[in-house]
């Protein structure tokens, strides 16, 4: 007899080995809160949306932004910001639509796919924000090179000293370095949160996908 048949015989033999929960035990359970990964992904995703929205609002009122207004660069910055909000709204909508399709009564593979899809949306949103951050940092740098009086004075001085290339190279390098560190921190944070949360789901999903090959 093969192993599973032996196991099946025992498996079906006796149900008294399992704990017997009473009506009240079960009733108490349905009142408790879920701690499923879907719930955590939902909470963390909302926090991510809030985080980036707060960042963009906070920057709007920051001192350097006020200084920035004196450069008369609104024609570039306003469309850029409107675009940012439109994209936020789009991702938010997409995230909610994905979230609503998650159903525990789907088959295992579809359930996993739908969970991963909501994740992917938030991931794309964060990637968008990081790209947005990089683009705006260089945009700001470009505008400052052209319109900031202190910056122009420094550039002129550097040019007079014959160190113009060195000055540009150093400023751009420093900005890139700061951005790289910032992005690095985000990636570590991401790896920690989602890596741990989705480790099991990812490996089970891979296992199911493998069966199709």
């Amino acid at each position: 007899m093969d192993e599973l048949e032996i196991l099946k015989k025992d498996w079906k033999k006796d149900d008294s080995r399992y704990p017997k929960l009473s009506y009240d035990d079960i009733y108490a359970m349905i009142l408790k809160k879920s701690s499923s990964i879907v719930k955590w992904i939902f909470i963390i995703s909302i926090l991510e949306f809030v985080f980036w929205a707060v960042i963009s609002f906070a920057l709007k009122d920051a001192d350097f932004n006020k200084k920035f207004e004196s450069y008369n660069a609104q024609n570039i910055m306003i469309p850029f910001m409107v675009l940012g909000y439109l994209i936020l709204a789009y991702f938010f909508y997409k995230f909610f639509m994905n979230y609503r399709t998650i159903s525990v009564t789907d088959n295992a593979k579809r359930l996993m796919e739908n969970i991963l899809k909501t994740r992917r949306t938030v991931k794309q949103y964060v990637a968008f924000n990081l790209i947005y951050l990089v683009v705006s940092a260089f945009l700001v740098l470009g505008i400052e090179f052209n319109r900031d009086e202190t910056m122009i004075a420094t550039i002129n001085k550097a040019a007079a000293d014959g160190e113009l290339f060195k000055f540009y190279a150093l400023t751009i390098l420093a900005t890139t370095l700061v951005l790289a560190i910032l992005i690095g921190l985000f990636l570590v944070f991401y790896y920690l949160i989602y890596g741990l949360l989705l480790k099991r789901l990812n490996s089970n999903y891979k296992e199911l996908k493998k069966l199709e090959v």
Partner: protein
Amino acid sequence: MTKELEHNFVELLEQHQNIVHKVCRLYTNNQDAHNDLFQEVTIQLWKAYPKFRGESKFSTWMYRVSLNTAITLYRKSKRTIDTQDFDAFQFKITSESYDDTEEQQLKLLYNAVHQLNDIEKALVFLYLEDKNYNEISDTLGISEVNARVKMNRIKTKLKTILNP
């Protein structure tokens, strides 16, 4: 209305609770973890219950939700430590089978099943519950042919674990 729904649900689950216990038995290694998973499955079943339209049997519907919770939604609690030691609960063999060799063999078998991965356990579970390949493929979202192929591989894998 909610009260009535609650009452119906709790009664049905009380009747069919062994399905959930069996899933917990395969996916957890100790009593605490068992209770934890049971709790989460119950919440998921309850959340999904308003959409249960009785198109399938309550028990069939339970298989799906229980397995989905175990392999997808459940976050292993800190208390769930992967270990090959099982407490007495896992091996409370019935008295009539108190035959040393049979008991030993079953112990090794359950031990081997515990070494399978989550998906393999799901297949084994449905197989032990006498589900046909159509139902297995439907529950997991894979084709029937692949379910069969995988099942054969699992049998071979179990043999290898038992006779290294």
